[in-house]
């Protein structure tokens, strides 16, 4: 084992310290060191978006970030989405619209969709499809995911 590095970061708003090797990806650190297993491994090469998290507010694939790189930065994962036991409107809409089947891609879609609605609160269908192009789903055929994002967008704008 090579030298371990002590990393201080913020994850879902909380200060977190961890030890990792330089070769461990942020995805490995989240899942295997911090046991935040909501972030999923799909392709592990930046193509599928299953491991999407935000790094200082920017969407990234956690498999293409080294764990040591997040020192001093702020990471948000799917675990930071529900607040006080209440699901985020996007999570509710994904359930209601069956925007998922096997669920492996779902955390990534939710994190990407939340970033989309923060940037564009009322996105067009084309905007949603373009924004979510880096997230792959082999179950749903995407239409139900799009419906869920549209539903959540309407509810969030209406404040319901």
């Amino acid at each position, binding site marked *: 084992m*090579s030298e371990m590095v002590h990393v201080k970061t913020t994850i879902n708003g909380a200060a977190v310290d961890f030890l990792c090797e330089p070769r461990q990806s942020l995805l490995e650190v989240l899942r295997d060191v911090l046991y935040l297993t909501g972030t999923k491994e799909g392709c592990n090469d930046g193509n599928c978006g299953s491991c999407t998290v935000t790094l200082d507010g920017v*969407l990234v694939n956690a498999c293409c970030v080294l764990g040591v790189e997040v020192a001093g930065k702020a990471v948000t994962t799917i675990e930071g989405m529900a607040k006080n036991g209440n699901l985020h409107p996007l999570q509710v809409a994904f359930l209601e619209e069956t925007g998922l089947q096997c669920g492996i891609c779902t955390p990534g879609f939710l994190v990407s969709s939340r970033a989309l609605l923060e940037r564009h609160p009322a996105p067009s269908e084309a905007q949603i499809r373009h924004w979510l192009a880096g997230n792959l789903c082999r179950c749903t055929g995407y239409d139900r995911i799009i419906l869920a994002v549209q539903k959540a967008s309407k509810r969030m704008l209406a404040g319901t």
Partner: protein
Amino acid sequence: MHQFKYATPGSIEALLSMLAEQRSPVKLLAGGTDLIVQMRTGAVTPALVIDVKQVVELNQLLLSDKGLIIGAAVSCRTVYENNHVARAYPALIDAASLIGGIQIQGRASIGGNLCNASPSADLIPALIVLEALAVIQNSRGSRELPVEDFCTGPGTNALAGDELLVSLKLPPGAKNSGACFRRFTPRNEMDIAVANAAAAVVLSADGKHFTSARIAIGAVGPTPILVQEAAEALQGKPVSGASVGIAADIARQAASPINDMRGTIAQRKQLVQVLVTRALQGAIERAGGAL
């Protein structure tokens, strides 16, 4: 992934002295969207990975009347979300907003796309027609190299072991000028170009003639190619479909693609003709001209 040491120099001097003192293979990390994947597959196995993102000079994005300076570690997303840069250099935005998907664009750097030197890199043809200079430094001094001379083969570039790509320097757009980048992929996003093309034109004051032009094509040779003959063929010629057709035909002849899973030689040559035509049409429109 193999074991390696990780360093985060806080200044360009510290970074350059690390490069000067290196005895084992080193790789520089900016966005990591190429490097981390290449390390995971074992394609590259550096003993030291130097994260360059703490170095101020590599993070600058500076637009002035002298042109644009893009630090090598600046991400695609930072570039295309800057409205001033987007207005001044739309061809750069054409390419930066097409690379990967939103997750890749947030990390992948302009300098990384150039250093990775993929024949199909989307930013390189755009940088070439915009007359970008690569600003290169080592601990002894600096030099500037036109981007068309930067790539030396698939995955290889002109940097010596102790040299660093610091930034890209783009001159300001001339009067009556415009540039445009186009690519062909089976899928609109998250795909690698079967072929791509960029064009820049400067038109006469009345918009009727080409004063000068630059045309570059990608994914149709070992490196992106600046097609001088195509540009020269436009010089002084009327802005017309016939002129554009002649330049596109020359670009088609300059393409030397391979057959692979993305496309055949015949398809790629045909695509060059179509993409150069469309890139020229876009460039003419942005220059205020009309066909």
